């Protein structure tokens, strides 16, 4: 890994980012990012409805394009069609982002100095 390349969990903090895809390609890319994101997102539908939840799956084939979501508001899961998505906001905290390991190592180093 080169010095100026951040590790995957520190590349970018998407929290707060809003994406309004204007093409199928952009939509696919945003959905992939939402799938990879370890936090909740808010999916705004073309109907005006908003769903907050965790994107745990996405399937895109010739015959099928949908997203699997664990909603925060209720148990079970939802399936949302790609075609119904107007926007995705990375509204929840990315639980994998950050430097918790460095903080722990720093703590152990300080203990070692005492």
């Amino acid at each position, binding site marked *: *890994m080169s010095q100026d390349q951040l*590790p*995957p*969990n*520190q590349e970018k903090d998407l929290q707060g980012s809003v994406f309004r895809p204007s093409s199928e390609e952009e939509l696919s890319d945003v959905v992939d990012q939402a*799938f990879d994101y*370890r*936090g*909740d997102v808010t999916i705004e539908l073309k109907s005006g409805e908003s769903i907050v939840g*965790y994107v*745990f*799956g*996405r*399937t895109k084939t010739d015959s099928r394009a949908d997203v*699997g979501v*664990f909603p*925060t508001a209720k148990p079970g899961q939802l399936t949302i069609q790609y075609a119904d998505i107007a926007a995705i906001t990375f509204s*929840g*905290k990315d*639980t*994998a982002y*950050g*430097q*918790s*390991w460095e903080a*722990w190592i720093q703590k*152990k180093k300080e203990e070692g100095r005492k």
Partner: protein
Amino acid sequence: MAVPISQMFTVSSYVIAQKIKRVKRYPLVLMLEPIFRCNLACAGCGKIQYPDHVLDRRLTPEQCWAASDECGAPIVSIPGGEPLIHPEMSEIVRGLVERKKYVYLCTNAILLERKIDEYQPSKYLTFSIHMDGLRNEHDLAVCRDGVYDVAVKAIKTALKKGFRVTTNTTLFDDANTDRVRSFFDEMMDLGVEGMMISPGYSYDKAPDQKSFLKRDRTHELFSRLLSNRKRGWQFNQSPLFLEFLMGKRDYQCTPWGNPTYNVFGWQKPCYLLQDGYVSDFATLLKETDWENYGTGRNEKCKDCMVHCGYEATAVEDTFSSWSGFAGTVKATLFPNAT
């Protein structure tokens, strides 16, 4: 001998039956993840980073048994998260044991002494205790002081009560050969049945992104560890897999060998990567692009040498040819032969 004869017979019979039926892709170990919530946040783990409402989800006993029935693998490994947090874990295990599955219940042992009386000793049940090294190394790896001592105490309790106990060790770039070998001595002195070792996988989501082993370093480390092996060390793994770690054998990954089922569904393509989920095992086998994964096929697989992908390859090697079988016998009887 680390693994009981009955388990070796069951696995051998199963693999031979697959070969007779000319099954190209068969599962060997079901990786069953009923819960992702954990009571630790280990530096090398990329499994638990989810919002709370996802960590609160869990598989029911019925879902676990159905997955096992659907998959058919003779061995079920239950990692997590921390499985002992699941309030119905003992029931899940009871149902799997009734199905005569060899269950490896993986745990950091923090809750083991509290929960152990919910379980019955059985040749089908092994507590696989997460131990990444001697006290300093283990507590550093799990990012909490005192865990090593709790785990050792729990190991002693479990052994005293008649349970099968193994250890499960993940090694990283900073592993000190002498100390790891001392660790092997300590674990065998405790009386565990056997040890499992593996290089850590470079999870994108793990907190420590600097300590993962590259492939050549893995060969180097495991050669130093496993050459001039002590007779008393028992490894609960295929001897051919250990030779693979040492760089003595070249294997391609068998990702379908250890299929994974969790709250999201059946995970494509393997225990370590998350490229999507399907609702049933048959679809997992049919719709996963298996040719896109493995050494030389995928950037994410480049340095991976983890047992969940390669142990199944080693087992397949044992049963695929007389030379594979002979190699296994030789490696078992003469582990220090060059």
